[in-house]
């Protein structure tokens, strides 16, 4: 068995200024992207890692390249002084 290194959590953001509501992402990853109203895109910034392939396809399919995926492999920062 080949053990894969743990993949970093899935994180994405859409530049909604750039987004023109073509909806390609909604087709590619319907559990992550959806329209709310006629044209307003809504999406999950931190979907389950299992949909990584769909999200990557959505990012590639976006005609205006408005979707940015996380690329960092270092751990997310945690709050210092956790007695707040």
């Amino acid at each position, binding site marked *: 068995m080949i053990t894969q290194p743990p993949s970093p959590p899935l*994180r*994405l*953001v859409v*530049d*909604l*200024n*750039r*987004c*023109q*509501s*073509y909806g390609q992402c909604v087709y590619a990853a319907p559990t992550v992207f959806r329209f*709310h*109203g*006629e*044209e*307003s895109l*809504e999406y*999950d*910034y*931190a*979907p389950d890692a299992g949909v990584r392939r769909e999200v990557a396809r959505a990012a590639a399919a976006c005609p205006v390249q408005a979707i*940015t*995926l*996380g*690329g*960092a*492999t*270092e751990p*997310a*920062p*945690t*709050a*210092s*002084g*956790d007695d*707040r």
Partner: protein
Amino acid sequence: MTAPAAAGLRTGRIVVVGASLAGLRAAEALRDEGFTGELTLIGEEPHEPYDRPPLSKAVLSGRLSCDHIVLPQVRNIDARWLLGTRATGLDVPGRRVELADGRSVAYDRLLIATGTRARPWPVQAGGRLDGVHVLRTREDAERLRGALLASPSRVLVIGAGFTGGEVASSCRELGLAVTVTQRSATPLASALGGVIGRATADWYREAGVDLRPHTTVRTLEGHPSGRLRRAVLSDGTTVDAEVAVVATGALANTEWLAGSGLAADHRGAVSDAGCRAMTADGRPVEDVFVAGDVARWPHPRYPGQLLRLDHWDNAVAQARTAAHNITHGPGEQLVHRPLPAFWSQQFGRYLKSIGVPALADQVVVTQGSLDRRQFVAAYGLQGRLVGAVAVDSPRVLEGYAALVESGAPFPPLLGASDGPDHLDPVDAAFPGRAAGSPPDHAVSAPAPTAHR
């Protein structure tokens, strides 16, 4: 002239104060630009950077939890993160940031990206009452979401700007009764003028919102228990409400800069066109930079005033410009001159804007129609196109952006197939301005508060 690269900073210590969108993107850009030194991010909130636009929409409506609005980090930045840590002072000559816990952090270059906060309701007018909310942070959104889940009999939203409209829209989605007060004649009047504002007022009313234009809240009154009971309005009427959301604009987080000698107040921290902080007596500081919502700067396109754009894409673009200028020498400096752009979602409509409609004296609907709720409006100032707003028509704005960038004449010559037979510009009806006169306020005043 090409300056030696050594004049920019590639090693040493860079401190970024503010760990939200602008701070994070600046840190990433600093590494992209080749900075290999010590990078510290200081953030008052205890969370890793998250996105704010969904707070008033998907989060408030319950479609997205706050755990799911974390911003992606697009590259490793190898930074020291001081989260949950408030900056309380800045020693410019000593190059140190003072922290609330008594520590201080030394820097060679500093980036100020502390953003804005919601303007609070005055304490003497009921601001401390239980049930009075603002909406700017995750905690604000979670608190307000909890209050809405308790099924209040009515929610009062104070202010029909972008945040106010989105909150009212989310409340209606939840089936809650909503009253919205608005100082001017229509929602969004200071950002988009009265003509387009009147169209948005129809969305409010169709959604069942009790909209009170030309009305302010005089005071919020509570039960003896300290719970909000009702609001007394400027017309003498009262509104019974258990929840009030104060959406009356933003204040820049600059208190920590008091005594630093920098030009900074509630309107922002002033920089030059290259994002370099300015002193109160008007000199740029070589090693301190400003980016994001907190920044006010002289945009070359809009001379004679300082611009503050609390827009999402400005935070990203200004962070990149600042990071470039921090890491490059005098001959390689960039000027920050973005075309402003923002968007809003409310009452099922998707509104997008480019340029600065608030500068305009005239407006004309160029595509679609106000009645159909799907239209594009072009804004002109003294015969030039200065901005455009599209409702449920996101794909057309690119073309208008190019026209605004090129200083095209107004009304624009488009030949759009869905346009009217001839264009008939009217007074854009911005409050407090005679027809045909330019705004007497800074462009920053009407900028929306939630959508960078």
